[in-house]
């Protein structure tokens, strides 16, 4: 996994990896979804066009979370009944990876984590139910079915073989939250906290016509 540069097997454009742990990326030019396969890149599909998208974040946006600098290197776009939301894949300067979710400009940063207690069964989810993970009491607030709309850039896993997801969002009394992804078996846990826009100190954001830049 030392190769940082590769050639798109579809269009021949240079594909550069920012993060050594990336498993999947998207060719910027032909939107081919490329999966790292030993030393080569395998073409596994084509990314769908991005929906009407006015997230101020883009690949290359930089910011800070808990005094650690990060760079946005990829994203997954999910579609749900109110539109779409973005999970931006973050690469921190220490090499760790995390997620910045942007749902109608409500921001939250989370990290994949391990379950300390067994999560509730997918079939028995009820709003208001509590689970404890890492000594944090978490209350189930939203159960959402979402679709993979499209992906962009570098991801820590492959997404081309996924279509539907089933998430349970848990909140706390102190600004932290958890998401359990029940579309994986066993389910995945993401723990994080909500973040004020200004606290993320985002740089290299998109510009909006008619609005002052941040």
């Amino acid at each position: 996994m030392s190769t940082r540069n590769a050639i798109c097997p579809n269009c021949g454009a240079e594909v550069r990896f920012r993060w050594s742990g990336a498993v999947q990326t998207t060719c910027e030019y032909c939107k081919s979804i490329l999966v790292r396969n030993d030393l080569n890149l395998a073409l596994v599909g084509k990314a769908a066009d991005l929906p009407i998208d006015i997230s101020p974040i883009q690949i290359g946006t930089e910011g800070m979370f808990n005094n650690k600098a990060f760079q946005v290197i990829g994203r997954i776009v999910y579609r749900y009944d109110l539109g779409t939301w973005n999970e931006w894949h973050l690469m921190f300067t220490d090499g760790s990876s995390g997620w910045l979710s942007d749902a109608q400009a409500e921001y939250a940063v989370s990290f994949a984590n391990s379950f300390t207690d067994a999560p509730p069964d997918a079939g028995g989810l009820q709003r208001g139910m509590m689970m404890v993970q890492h000594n944090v009491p978490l209350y189930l607030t939203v159960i959402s079915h979402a679709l993979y709309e499209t992906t962009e850039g570098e991801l820590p896993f492959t997404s081309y073989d996924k279509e539907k997801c089933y998430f349970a969002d848990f909140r706390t009394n102190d600004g932290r939250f958890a998401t359990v992804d029940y579309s994986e078996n066993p389910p995945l846990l993401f723990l994080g906290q909500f973040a004020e826009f200004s606290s993320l100190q985002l740089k290299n954001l998109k510009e909006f016509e008619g609005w002052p830049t941040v």
Partner: protein
Amino acid sequence: MNPTAPRKGFVPKAKALNCPNCGSQIELRAAGAASAVICNYCSSTIDATHPQLRIIGQWQAAMTIEPAIPLGSRGKLKGVLWEAIGFQQRGINVDGTNYFWREYVLWNPYQGFRYLSEYNNHWSFVTPLQTLPAPTTVMGMPGLILGPDTYRHFQTARAYTWFVIGEFPWMVQVGEAVDAADYVSPPKMLSSETTDNEVTWSQGEYMTGAEIWQAFQVKTPCPPPIGIFADQPSPYAGKVAGAWKFYGLMCMVLFAMMVFFAITARGQRAFDKTVTITPSQMAGEKSFVTEVFTLDGNNDNLEVNIDADVSNKWIFLSMALINEETGQAFDFGREVSFYFGTDSDGSWTEGSRSDDVLLPNIPGGRYYLRIEPETDPSLAAPISARIQLVRGVPYYFRYFLGMFLLLIPPIWTSIRSAAFEAKRWSESDYSGGSSSSDGDD
């Protein structure tokens, strides 16, 4: 182009679109962010997340309301520039009466959505809340804790959307109903809206119409607020405690002064003489004068103390304190009487053998007393009366009077504050309890 260089993203202004129902032009201000846009002309709710602008629903609006803040206008609140992109009128029905309030959707491409709500010209800046407030009990009533603040439950009611225009981050429709609950900790308020699918929380902060008018440069005159709003900060907030604190401080000052003057009081005996009153000599010229004595100091008080051996008798002394040098006279009269006996209820007494009076503000100088005694002339035995004058006695009454008068401001402030709170809570679910005599507030 180097693909690794940060790409310069640019989001152009969205173009106006045509309503798929009536064809009229719809301006999209937050295309891609807003979920729903409502046609200005036919009130259709259109799914703005759908490239083909699918119609979600059509309702004939029961009313038409002109937003005080024109949609599309921008204003800076809390240091951030916001654009008003949506407007709705909502209402609750209490005992057959509709109470309406208005909500504006504010949008900034970086910060997302905020809201302004307005009821009777009271405004709140509302921020969606991701943190769950923790349930608690406040004075036996439901409450919430969020951060450092405790909020008291104010009202829960079913809220209906009556009129809506512009863009919204949810699929708003006329007729939409939620269970809305408000909790207050002035100037802040926590609100929940519960639908079948989810509970959303928001935090409001009280603002005046003047602040909103200034921020959004609204051209129409700013109407004054009516009544007291749920999270309106009380003008007496903090003042009640302050008034009582000040009172406590002043009492301490008065007490210190009282102790100081008690310790430093002159307390000097200026005159002490026993006179004999012979009842049989009451006729004719009966007044006499004493020898001259000196009163030190200037404008100090003078206590006159009379002890008379009266038993079932009375005496009355008309006295004048006369300044030998200026002739200035201070006239006063004192009665000393003491009666006792027994009846069917046992023994009784009335009056006292001694009498005190305090003359304030007597200038210093050389004085004598002119005394004119009176008593029952039919009595046989003479009565002796000891007259003592003490210059500069400690005088406590004024301090207690001061402490009493100083009670007026804190009590007044407390009453005004309680009246303000009573008016605030009269609009709440707890108005019955606080106005009736058996209320437990």
